[in-house]
């Protein structure tokens, strides 16, 4: 495409490797550019020389393009205050520079070999870094508020709805394409495609199957079994009733051999509580009775309950000696320890299961057998219990 505008400055011309601006001998449409002509100093440029009327006006044919009006004012309205603002902003940026260097220095200078050293390092690094950002932020804000001239421009909003023609055109193109693709015209294609995509969509879901094993019956049981000793958690020592003899005592117990097994502890952790004679509300049955403590499962007024709250599984360990309440600190489910840990407040719906205990030949507390009901939070497959 030939360039048809003349003039020393033509903003729309493509630089096609031809004559340089100001030397092009182009004055009218369609003329091929000739080789550059040398100009004698003093003579007017060729374009002007050709035109008898002088340079064409901007915006007309042959003239330069209309110079765009300046879009935004160059300077803020209040120049003296802008000068002040400039100094303030510069000061802010200088502070930021110093702070940035300070950060680098602090990183090198402050070690982290003790907790106290970490504290100092955190202060030093944090202060310098905050100062960098804060100073830059304040500087930038003052800059935009006081140094950049204010404008409020208006432009139109076009309705977002496309014009009817555009919509029609879209519809035509889309339908043409759909028609051409044959997917509507050939139902066999379409139906077999749909059929193929169904298993393909199911495949990723199938791949998730091995995320975990099926629950099976594993939630119904814990590792407690006949003869397994109760260990005092922490020291992990077995317990004689004679050692745990102060009424009002409570301690966390774990099954022997599982003290480091979190999967086991998450269900098997229990607490034992010592009562004075006559405090516990006994039943002589060998199975849980609502509101009662199974006497056969206690030893010397020591009763064992599951520590896993029946609400959502937090350890329900808070024991109040005076009221014999077991309180779970998560959602405040409260259980009455002398009445079979039945629920007296809070969202839990079931009592804490009682762990059946006895003593073994060496005199240590052991389990008689596993809990007779699933411990911990409720689940769908859990049937009725106490």
């Amino acid at each position, binding site marked *: 495409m030939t360039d048809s505008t003349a003039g020393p400055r033509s903003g729309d011309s493509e630089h096609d490797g031809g004559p340089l601006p100001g030397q092009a001998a182009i004055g009218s449409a369609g003329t091929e550019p000739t080789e550059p002509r040398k100009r004698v100093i003093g003579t007017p440029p060729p374009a002007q020389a050709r035109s008898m009327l002088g340079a064409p006006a901007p915006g007309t044919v042959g003239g330069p393009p209309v110079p765009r009006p300046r879009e935004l004012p160059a300077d803020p309205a209040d120049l003296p205050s802008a000068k002040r603002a400039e100094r303030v902003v510069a000061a802010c940026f200088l502070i930021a520079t110093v702070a940035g260097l300070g950060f680098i220095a602090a990183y090198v200078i402050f070690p*982290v070999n003790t907790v106290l050293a970490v504290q100092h390092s955190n202060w030093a690094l*944090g202060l310098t*870094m905050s100062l960098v950002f804060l100073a830059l932020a304040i500087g930038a804000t003052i800059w935009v508020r006081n140094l950049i001239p204010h404008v409020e421009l*208006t432009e139109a909003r076009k309705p977002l709805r496309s014009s009817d023609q555009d919509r029609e055109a879209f519809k035509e193109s889309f339908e043409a394409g759909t028609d051409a693709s044959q997917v509507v015209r050939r139902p066999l294609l379409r139906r077999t495609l749909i059929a193929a995509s169904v298993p393909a969509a199911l495949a990723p879901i199938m791949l998730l199957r091995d995320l*975990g094993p099926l629950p099976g019956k594993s*939630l119904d049981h814990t590792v407690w079994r006949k003869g397994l000793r109760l260990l005092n958690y922490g020291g992990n020592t077995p317990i004689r009733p004679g050692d745990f003899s102060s009424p009002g005592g409570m301690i966390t117990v774990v099954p022997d051999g599982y003290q480091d097994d979190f999967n086991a502890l*998450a269900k098997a952790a229990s607490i034992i509580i010592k009562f004075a004679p006559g405090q516990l509300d006994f039943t002589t049955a060998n199975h849980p009775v609502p509101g009662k403590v199974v006497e056969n499962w206690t030893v010397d007024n020591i009763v064992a309950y599951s520590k896993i709250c029946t609400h*959502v599984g937090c*350890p329900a360990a808070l024991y109040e000696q005076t009221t014999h309440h077991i309180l779970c600190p998560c959602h405040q489910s409260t259980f009455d320890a002398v009445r079979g840990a039945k629920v007296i407040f809070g969202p839990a719906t079931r009592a804490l299961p009682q762990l059946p205990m006895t003593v073994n030949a060496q005199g240590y507390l052991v389990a008689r057998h596993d809990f007779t009901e699933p411990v911990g939070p409720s689940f*769908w497959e859990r049937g009725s219990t106490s």
Partner: protein
Amino acid sequence: MSIDRALSGTGSWLDDRFRGAKGFRAVLRKLYPDHWTFLLGEVALYSFVILLLTGTFLALFFKPSMTEVVYHGVYTKLDGLKMSEAYASTLKISFDVRGGLLMRQIHHWAALLFVAAILAHMLRIFFTGAYRKPREVNWLIGLVLFTLALLEGLFGYSLPDDLLSGAGLRITQGVLQSIPVVGTYLSFFLFGGQYPGHSIIPRFYILHVLLIPGFFLALIGAHIFIMYHQKHTQMPSKGRTNTNVVGAPAWPYFAVKTTALFLFVFAATTLASTFVQINPIWIYGPYNPLAISAGSQPDFYVGFLEGSLRIMPAWQWVIFGHTFAFNVFIPALLPLGIIMTAAALWPFLEQWITGDRREHHINDRPRNAPTRTALGLAAVSFYGVLWAEGANDVIAQHFNISLFLVTWIARVAVFVVPVLAYIITKRICLGLQIKDLHLLEHGVETGIIRQLPSGEFIEETRPVSDEALAKLARPAPLPLPAGRADGEEEDVPPPGARRGVGRVKARLNKVLTESVPVNGHGANGQGDGHGPAEHGAGAEHVRAAIGSPEHEAQDADGHSGGQE
């Protein structure tokens, strides 16, 4: 000048390949309406950027593994103890890596600010009606972003495997387990078997650093692009109409302002991380399923779920050998479900009730939509009561109130407070509308008292300035449904509104659009921002003797209709 050189050098190199001049010029010249509330979404965005930056740093040091190791490090109190690698590596980041603690704290503070800013932004959008057409899709995207933010935070603070977040994990597992039919399967699949297992931390890690950030980037990109394409809304003010955009161009104004905001967000989170400790996992200790602390709460944005769990009375059904653990899955699903579903459906419900299907680009002042604002605050107070109940033991301890009493108060408050909030907010909005109308009708009091020849004293008023006029003037009411003349009382409703759904809709419309009428018309709070010309209010110099019968009568006249 060097700008010319840069543009003709690099600039034209790029333009030769991408034809960007026209497109980028439009980007530079795009106008951005200005109001401080429009910056809340940006605060959220920049918090997200900070999370990405600090998160990348943390990911270079964190080990997402539950393998047991023995700790030997700077934090000597726990020396020799067994703990998971995840916990040990977090201790290492905090104590053995220079700047590690700072980065960890910035990451966590930025996460809290992220969710707080999303909440503030979401409420701003709701109360100004910026979710209306054409922005319904963006509102829905925003709700998804909010939910993702909750999940991302939950997964993030659980990664160190400390006692506090581990307790939260146990609760999550218990809740999951309680879901009917599929609960146990979901729990076993998520945890790779029994709780706690060895898979949950690595799985949360990949969700937290890959999957959810991926969704975030895509959805935030869409959210911003839609806003860019549809152009931002603007606050009612002089010169702003529903068919224009008034503001300053992106280059340099918005570019500099948004950079300043980003720097402020970074400064704020860094300041917080320097001076205020957050999530001191070394105090909490490594997770152990048989240990728990009093005063265990999740991060604030999960607090209302925690409160729902605490507030719920013990309620379950056991039928035919199966347990419906209502006490667990109702609090887990119902409050969040109600709020999210209501929020998602709201723009469409409002459109259906009011019949308003126009484009809205001028924000409402919250007082001009009294019912909507009241409903919003009722929802906020519902959320707030549950959130406070999540901290019930901390409240009981520090304010010396019996523990169970706090829960009982919350159980009552969760029903009573939203109703009260609705009523009070509505009255306040209507009151503010009356105040605005008074200003429009009587003008601004100048404090100049004149005595008339008859002996009366009057206060001079001057008309409201143009700026304030544009703000105070009420948007034009919607055209009334066909079949009724303007101002006609509804003795005979139009055919569609006589029975069934139509009647319900008409009733809801009346409640939703209730507002103090302007100049005696039945006006509603919906509509686009037209200038004051239609109302003819406030332009004249109105003189009324204060305390005179005319003044009182004027008040009575102006406010007699439509006020309950």
